[in-house]
């Protein structure tokens, strides 16, 4: 919050703390755009949830976001070079009002079937 005060944006920021999944989803659905400048990820739930709720996402151009979302045809996601803060803000502006949806992924059950069968085969019980 000190940095927010220094940047003179503290009165425009509200830190929610922990929200239940329903509260979080309702908030995501009402947001114009989701800023997700993560440098480290594999497959962020957070991005997937926002897109599924119709909220566009601007994120860093790192392999996790590029491979799992952009290259798989997600709508309403824009990737920006890491540390390009101005470009990040510009892309976020452009995304406001745009449609968003995640790529068509298999179901959680299908993914888990695969994980468990891999494990069983490896151990010799499959």
């Amino acid at each position: 919050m000190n940095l927010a005060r220094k940047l003179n944006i503290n009165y425009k920021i509200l830190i929610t703390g922990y929200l239940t999944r329903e509260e979080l989803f309702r908030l995501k659905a009402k947001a114009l755009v989701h800023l997700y400048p993560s440098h480290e990820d594999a497959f962020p739930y957070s991005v997937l949830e926002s897109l599924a709720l119709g909220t566009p996402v601007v994120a860093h151009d790192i392999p996790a976001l590029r491979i799992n979302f952009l290259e798989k045809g997600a709508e309403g996601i824009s990737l920006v070079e890491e540390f390009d803060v101005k470009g990040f803000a510009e892309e976020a502006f452009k995304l406001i009002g745009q449609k968003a949806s995640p790529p068509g992924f298999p179901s959680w059950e299908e993914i888990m079937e695969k994980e468990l069968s891999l494990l069983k085969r490896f151990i010799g019980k499959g």
Partner: protein
Amino acid sequence: MYGDALKILAVANIDITKGGGVLRAIRSIKWYVKNKVRVDLLIPLSDVFYAHSELKDLKALGVSIAGAFKISSIASHAPILKKTLSDIENILFRRVNFLKLSYKYSPDAVVSFHESTDFVVTAYILSKLFHSKSVSLLQLPPFYGLKRRAENIVRSWFLWNYYLTSLSNYSNIQRKLSMDLIKASNLIHRNIKYNFYKHLDMLIAVSPSIPLEMNVKWDNMVILDPGLTLDREDQILINKIIKESPTKNRIILYSARISPEKGLIEALYAFRIMSKNFQVSDFSSQENLKQVSKEH
């Protein structure tokens, strides 16, 4: 009850406030149990105190709690206590097979549901103890083999420390030196981890980006593509919210863990640029965002 079913000893975090990796681990464990896998669970000691509801849910499904590790996790804000507890744990772990004393059977595999070294090493030691396989789910790259990626992550730590700690008072030489030290230390850790993870029995990566960022092609690694998605519960909730056609508020959202790698500093700077040219909601009047999120 389980007969010849698969038996695993799971080493996992269950405190859901720690992020998406924990959510996936819990969902995975629940799915295993519903599909007749016997799961005994080893959790960080702090989760015993802070993850009551998850613990209750898992127990209700039939997950047994095998014990707790990372004793030092209960003292995350007290460095001296943390060190002492960590030492005690090392002595216990090395000299007394305390888990084996209370454990009546051998699991088929000891599975770490996280990539971080403390979880993976614990799973590995236990697998040796029980003469079973050691498996680790990689929910993030445990190290970065791509130079640029590794450097950018160090840069994000540096940015965090510059703006939020006393690093801004350092001279340029001191800053350069501390960055070089972090890079050197990362390189040493990377080499140690490379040789350790390469020789584990099985690694399951939850995204194709993981081996790419590690810059490895290992025979012991399988890749789930994709390795996660929304589960049925999430999907039902999302469909319900979308059906209500929520109206957009003037909210720019940052939703991620508060840590250097998640880019909070950049988000604040980007938000400042945006808010200069765009009217966003004003929270100075004590407006409660929880109410905003509940409005229909």
